């Protein structure tokens, strides 16, 4: 199969993730959509690594996974404290500072 197709898939996944971040209202879902975007990047990296025949992209994918894991730790901590103090994870409720 032509590896270019994986690039199309990765762009599609990235777009789905981006649309989810913009349109969904639950902080957890928004965060999952960000993770989907990161994984779409991974797919693109691995595909390009195969196209170019060098390993940089594969190494990058590993680093992305580690960074995504670290981001989950920090992100869930923040979202859970937010949820516990207002019993809602909706980003629409985060409006104390709106003028």
């Amino acid at each position, binding site marked *: 199969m032509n590896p270019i197709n994986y690039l199309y898939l990765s762009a599609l996944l990235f777009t789905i993730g981006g649309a989810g971040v913009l349109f969904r209202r639950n902080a957890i879902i928004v965060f999952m959509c960000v993770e989907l975007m990161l994984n779409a*990047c991974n797919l*693109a990296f691995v595909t390009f690594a195969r196209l170019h025949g060098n390993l940089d992209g594969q190494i990058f994918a590993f680093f992305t996974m580690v960074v995504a894991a670290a981001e989950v730790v920090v992100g869930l901590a923040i979202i859970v404290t937010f949820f516990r103090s207002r019993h809602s994870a909706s980003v629409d409720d985060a409006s104390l500072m709106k003028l």
Partner: protein
Amino acid sequence: MTGIIHSLWTTAADPALPLDRIPTPKIEYAQLSPVLIVFGAAVLGVLVEALLPRRGRYVAQLGVSVVGLAAAFAAIVALAADGYASTKSHIAAMGAVAVDGPALFLQGTIVLVALVAAFTFAERRLDPLVHGRRVDSFAAQGAAVPGSEQEQRAVRAGFTTTEVFPLLLFAVAGMMIFPAANDLLTLFVSLEVFSLPLYLLCALARRHRLLSQESAVKYFLLGAFSSAILLFGIALLYGYAGTISYGGIADVVSGTARMTPALANTTANDALLLIGGSMVVVGLLFKVAAVPFHMWTPDVYQGAPTPVTGFMAAATKVAAFGALLRLLYVVLPGLRWDWRPVMWGVAIATMVIGAVVAVTQTDVKRLLAYSSIAHAGFILAGVIAVSPDGVSSVLFYLAAYSFVTLGAFAVVTLVRDAGGEATHLSRWAGLGRRSPLVAAVFAVFLLAFAGIPLTSGFAGKFAVFKAAAQAGAVPLVIVGVISSAVAAFFYIRVIVLMFFSEPQPGGPSVAVPSPLTVTAITAGAVMTLVLGVAPQYFLDLAGKASVFVR
């Protein structure tokens, strides 16, 4: 095509290349010492947190932070004196980190800013005593629900979040690598290394905890979104050039790279370069808070604990502009006819919207946030001048601006009422009558923001606009001067409010700070005046440090 694809797997499995012939990477530890010292201090801070009893932690953490940052600054000065900023500048750690003039200058600025910020983090005299103990501006226990029994227990027990010091140091280390990153992997990892601690620091305010948590959620979700965009841009650039090193990509862009068949397949596709490059730039513009990627700034600056806001406003801007400069000047100079018009638009929008929206603000922290957006626009004007003058003016502006910002936010921590900091502007009315000294110092910072002569703001703005005008961006300079005038209006309005209106009955009082905050404010004021009255030495320093290594 299939032959090219499979060459990778056959060479990787080649028995003619035994493991001991794979070269070990060469790391120049001495040249990376500033960053390594800060990382070491951060790890030491984590150990302090784990091993020391609670009452000893505050002093130990403050000591570790101050000593670590001072040592890192000494290491930077030693490297610069050794010639790494000019003649010996080169790329260390197997092409990952540049040791050159801009990197060392910005690292020095970031470390000094962090040192001053550490003092404001450690301030414990502003809040009234809680159960007989002094408290700082950070939550007793970050995990406790605001207003809950658990939180009251934590407060009664005298808990303090001394973890803020290691978090600060990790953020500083990431910020130091960010402008020195010389490949896209280092760029991305250092971005996350400094962003993740900042998200946490934002959530840890002692007062107004709901606001603080809200700002952390906003900052985190938008920050993660922007770094995902940056990452996809990196993937496309990698696909375009087949390498993630800055020099390698620049060679492919300018067409001097050796063309392999695999490269010929993808480099013909300029869409990868244009989309990838713009997505990476978007990720960086988010961090510098340029319009239209600025929406997070006012909310995050308002909600975060004020010492954190000061640190974030100053140091993040320095680091992110450093990375943006290196990307545009080292990776994409061959593309400048494409990115310059776009950056023109972004700079104009940033200056105008930042200045105009700031006029309507009623909260002093939000006001400073919009002012920081406007300043990002002024700095972008210097970035657009693709010349050594442009680089040196941006370096000088960043150094000048960061100390003014730190000082201004440190003053904001002092003006307090029963509910904590009184940040609403109406509460500041008549402050000059009650506390002339504090109001006068704040006025100096505001005048520096406005760019009045004899302050560092004027010298910085003059340098930036001069570089932009010499590069032919005269319309940009005109817009810049007009929006400076608009910005001056609201800075002067605050000064008038402080000095020429009647103090409110029951208005806020000015807390008497400990020597820590006094040092921070003094450092900010002294830098503001020195860089304003005698800027030449620092301009020369920035001028000497303005050449990127390739």
